[in-house]
């Protein structure tokens, strides 16, 4: 399984989770875990997703998230989970 972390940060607005989740679902990307908080109106969400369902490479997935970034005016960052596992788990 190729796991990735998608972090979404920016000013809180309506429909953030819905927009991101819809886009992921269109690409057949399964969401494994979500955490989300709002601090002083600042929205922070982290999603762990499984990229294997998507029949495209990492760069293409990232590119397709671009319209979501633009419409929500949020920072959306995707990176492979391996880096967190390497750093924090033996």
């Amino acid at each position, binding site marked *: 399984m190729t796991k990735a972390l998608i972090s979404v940060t920016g000013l809180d607005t309506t429909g953030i989770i819905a927009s991101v989740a819809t886009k992921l679902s269109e690409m057949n990307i399964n969401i494994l875990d979500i955490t989300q908080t709002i601090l002083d109106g600042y929205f922070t969400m982290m999603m762990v997703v499984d990229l294997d369902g998507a029949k495209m490479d990492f*760069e293409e997935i990232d590119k397709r998230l671009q319209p979501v970034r633009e419409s929500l005016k949020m920072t959306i960052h995707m990176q*492979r989970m391996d880096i967190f596992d390497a*750093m924090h788990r033996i």
Partner: protein
Amino acid sequence: MIETGEILQTMRMIQEENFDIRTITLGINLLDCSDSDANRCAQRVYDKICKKAENLVRTGQEIETEFGIPIVNKRISITPVSLICQEDPMPIARALDRAAESVGVNYLGGYSALMHKGATLADERILASIPEVLCETRLLCSSVNVASTRSGINMNAVREMGEIIKKTAEMTAEQDGLGCAKLVVFANAVEDNPFMAGAFCGVGEPECAINVGVSGPGVVKVALESVRGQPFDIIAETIKRTAFRITRVGQLVAREASQRMNIPFGIVDLSLAPTPARGDSVAHILTEMGLEMAGAPGTTAALALLNDAVKKGGVMASNHVGGLSGAFIPVSEDIGMIEAAAAGALSIEKLEAMTCVCSVGLDMIAIPGDTSASAISGIIADEAAIGVVNNKTTAVRIIPAFGKKAGDRVEFGGLLGYAPVMPVNTKGNEAFIARGGRIPAPLHSLRN
């Protein structure tokens, strides 16, 4: 499952504390490119590098994107050119520069000669061509090994290198002696070093290998901010933990690059390599430990602790550790070192003492343009003696700044930074350097 706090910590390290992979360096063996015809040799060298390193830069960029970790440099290290050059080395030098340009790497290292015991005809040809090569080429880096613990110090080579450094500085005077920033003189050079300017692919290396150098002085500095006032035991432990995390990412990147390029993984170099950016300084780790500036009394002890803890933490995190492995203290590439040198807190003599306990040597130090070749040779000999006697790698990368005197400033730009010109002891040593010959290898028993 990874916790949110851990994810945020990793992100903070990358985004705010300048954690990056400093380099993926592809080592390429060129022994099979040797030919008695210089142009034919040059063509073979060009073809082989272009083929082997075809995907290096793209692979590096892919890993960068997918893992979200910057990989600052993609580089190539090759078999020392003196081992493949049977004729005029200039066509090979030009071919190397073109090959580096064509595959898109930042630097190519290995315009080198290993002459710690003596020089071959090829070594002499390489040496004589270094000033012109470093002036004419853009991406080529050169290194010369003049001493080793097993064979002693080749003082003929030391004498020649003083003159070559001076000539290189003169020929690149318009760029503040930039040529000398691409030239290192080593004692006990290592075969798998991924860092420039001293990278080359040693004869004991495989056909190709992926070597990775990590970096993150900013991360260590921030980690130490949380243990202010605590005893050194805690400091050492904190550095070890941080170095472990940094190196694990280096190992991950090395493994990915190795798999994607189908080239064996060589080593991870456990290094703390600074840049001139604020928050990316090794010197500021020392100041965080309680010194006003790098160079204050206690600096050597602080650096010894740092260097040792980085290795102890890192060695557990990687399958194979190698290269130079340790904290680097280049003057022009480290904002804390620049400030200390400009304030007069650091002298070449103090830097020499610091090199006894860390990697690698007198690095990126600008000296007055009128410094004599024999004085430069003397500095090289002193540094080589430290390496040879203490069984470690040492190096000298100094830049005579033509037309400038102590206190003036030189600018190299980019990662090479800028530096104040530091004074050199002007007492004569011509008769010492003129002797030549070889300083015998030291005894390695009766150690006291």
